[in-house]
């Protein structure tokens, strides 16, 4: 009995070598059989152990693809094109028109307005904008001794947040989802409990965190009670420049874990259970099954979780505004907060254009990350 189990070997168990009783129909595979390729897969999956190696290999490949599809959604099928008559089309257009028009006004107009503003100097009140070309962008990047150092320091903090938050969120939510998925009792209650941070996240919760983290707050109190007085922070966890940013990262992870966990749970429940049975037959333990089968099969979910959290980390600023306002002494300033401060907290200076320019740079960074992610996803597939 080998202990070396890979997704391929597990799938071999499903597809041919180990399965003597025909295909196992999970709801997902049952659905997949409606399409011609899936039917092929079922047939191939039913191939007995004596089938040719070539047939077995192609079965493995397809089943692997199918399992991947089960983690990321149903397999692609070609649907017959439905033709609508003209009246139906008009009805359709009539129903989507309000959304389209509102988007044109609220979305396209504001995007265009924001883009134009990034080339201007304005304080939000004066009737005229002063056009400055690309100066706002160059000032933020290197040109201004007032703004460039601030933006650079904020960019460094943002980078830490962008790395730490997605990685830690995945590191916490993936195992949590696996544990919850395997819980035999109180599964619903436990899921609700772990989802509480998401439904309660907001200004009130951030303020509550402030109280917990202050010098005489619950965390310092708990550490003292546990005899870990040396770990307490006399200035509070947000008052020490060395602990303020890591603390905010932990709070961000705390509020991001519920959704990530839910995505993983959804992914886990859509996996073909026969994969696990096969792995068990192959002698894989809990650790090996999760690291060598579940983790690779949920790669698409991980990609989504990473990307969502990366985007939030890059653009979010509420928690920084409420809990530290970028302090103490600008040690937790991030690019999202810097944008907000340039727009609304600059003592009425004409810096709305700078704020808009910084917003666009953040957008471009987010776009670049999304494209890189897409590329990596494609390559992985």
């Amino acid at each position, binding site marked *: 009995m080998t202990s070396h189990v890979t997704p391929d070997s597990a799938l071999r168990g499903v597809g041919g070598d180990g399965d003597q009783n025909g295909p196992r129909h999970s709801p997902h595979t049952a659905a997949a059989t409606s399409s011609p390729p899936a039917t092929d897969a079922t047939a191939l999956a039913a191939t007995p152990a004596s089938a040719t190696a070539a047939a077995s290999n192609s079965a493995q490949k397809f089943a692997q693809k199918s399992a991947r599809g089960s983690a990321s959604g149903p397999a692609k099928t070609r649907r017959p094109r439905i033709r609508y008559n003209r*009246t139906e089309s*008009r*009805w359709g257009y*009539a*129903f989507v*028109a*309000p959304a389209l*028009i*509102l988007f044109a*006004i609220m979305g396209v107009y504001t995007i265009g307005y924001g883009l134009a503003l990034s080339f201007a*100097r304005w*304080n*939000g*009140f*004066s*009737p005229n904008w002063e056009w400055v070309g690309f100066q706002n962008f160059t000032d933020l990047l290197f040109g*201004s*001794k*007032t703004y460039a150092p*601030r933006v650079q320091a904020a960019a460094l903090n943002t980078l830490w947040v962008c790395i730490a938050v997605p990685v830690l969120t995945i590191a916490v939510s993936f195992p949590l989802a696996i544990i919850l998925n395997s819980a035999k009792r109180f599964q619903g209650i436990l899921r609700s409990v772990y989802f509480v941070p998401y439904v309660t996240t907001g200004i009130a919760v951030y303020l509550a965190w*402030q109280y917990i983290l*202050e*010098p*005489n707050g619950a965390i310092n109190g708990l550490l003292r009670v546990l005899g870990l007085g040396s770990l307490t922070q*006399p*200035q*509070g966890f*947000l*008052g020490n*420049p060395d602990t303020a940013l890591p603390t905010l990262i932990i709070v961000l992870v705390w509020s991001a874990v519920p959704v990530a966990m839910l995505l993983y749970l959804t992914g886990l429940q859509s996996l073909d259970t026969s994969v696990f049975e096969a792995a068990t037959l192959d002698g894989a333990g809990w650790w090996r099954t999760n690291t060598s089968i579940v983790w690779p099969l949920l790669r698409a979910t991980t990609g989504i979780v990473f990307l969502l959290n990366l985007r939030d980390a890059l653009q979010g600023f509420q928690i920084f505004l409420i809990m*530290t*306002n*970028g*302090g*103490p*002494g*600008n040690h937790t300033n991030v690019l999202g907060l810097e944008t907000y401060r340039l727009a*609304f*907290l*600059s*003592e*009425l*200076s*004409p810096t709305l254009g700078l704020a808009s320019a910084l917003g666009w740079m953040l957008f471009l960074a987010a776009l670049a990350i999304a494209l890189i992610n897409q590329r990596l996803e494609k390559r992985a597939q």
Partner: protein
Amino acid sequence: MKRHRSLTRTAALATTLTLGLALTACASSGDNAGGGDGKSLTLWTFKQTHATALEKTAEDFKAKTGITVKVQAITPDDAFVTKTQAAAKTGDFPDLLEVHSRGEDFTFGAAGLLENLADKITPEWDKNYLESVRNEGTVTAADFKSSQETGSKIAGVEEGQRLSVPLTIGTFGIVYANKERLAAAGITEAPKTWEEFIAALDAVKKTNPDNGGVTIGLKSPSTGLEWLMQPMGFGQLGKGPFEALFTDDKSKNWSSENGTKVLSEYNKITPYWMPGSQTLDIDQADLSFAQGKSSFLVGGTFTLSFLNQNGFDTENLMTFPVPPPADGAVKDLALAPFSLTGLSLSSTSKNKDAALKFMEFVSEPDNAKKFSTNALDLAPVDLGADPSTEVGPVLGAMMAAFGEAGPNTYNPGNTSYRPNQYDPGDVGALLMNMTPLAQTDPAQTGSKMAELIDSYWVTQKG
């Protein structure tokens, strides 16, 4: 088929109507300004502690004139800025606004959003105000010159425009101390020098190790800089050398010997901060003092109303201005009162006459005194020989610290020596790295502050 066509048309029409209605609802309703009937006005204020007092004044005004004034408090400051920005874009300004004097009034006025009051204030009305603040809200020649420079916040103002009238006066740099705790530590007299202040902090800290410290809302880093260090620095160096700290002259600015001297003196307060002061905003710091978590609080005349509102017994207060060092250039440091907030009239108001009547009503001595008492803040009128009878003993005692304009008087309202785009928040953040964060020493702090202030000068000089 015909039926289908007619249904499609009906749907399209319904969609158009719905959208039209929705957009109309989104558009300016214009109801922030009174209806133009001269019988109702709207006033926006950014100070929660003034809202009730203004409402009471409005009740008296209605009883006298029949005109209703609806007071809306919009806080915090960034919410006020965004709300006014949106209102400016939609032409939906209220009739009246309470503004920071020489702040929003000049910025709004520069954008043409405010009425020029210069020819609307009669001499009788003008006489209501204390002479020292009578011209606050008026664009001076120096203001106009500064408005012409690159990046000015007030580009567009015209010399002589009067964009607000004073509503409250006061000053920064007032220390509030818990009288009982000071007495327990053997201190019954207010400290007269910076050294006595530090000694008082030390004594109270010894008797109250857990809550004997001093606090200030350092989450807004400008507070430590402007409310505490600057009055002390002014007293230490004197007017000229103090103002030179903000120039780009390396021999005189923060990176100079004078700068290091002031910063070193200020740094002596480091051991006495209430833990976590750097994470508190102004209200939270005030609240922590009111709740007894600290024994000293630095604020302004306006702080008293907040402490009172939050249940602190004002009888238990000892107040004194931030004192100068014993060997400082100014021995008898006084603080100049200046107009903290003012009232402005929107240029788009349809009720200008009624609004002007209300502005004058508020300035009339009896009404102003009443406002002072209700708001526990100082009105810009003559409160008589003994202000304590009008505004209570604590506020009255604070007024004793006020001095006439002169070389020994620190006026926080005078910012003419600083560059246009000077941001006290950013400079204050650098100062915080020295105290309370202890990340930089006075010399490093001074050179970083000088570097930042230089960058403002570079922008201004183009």
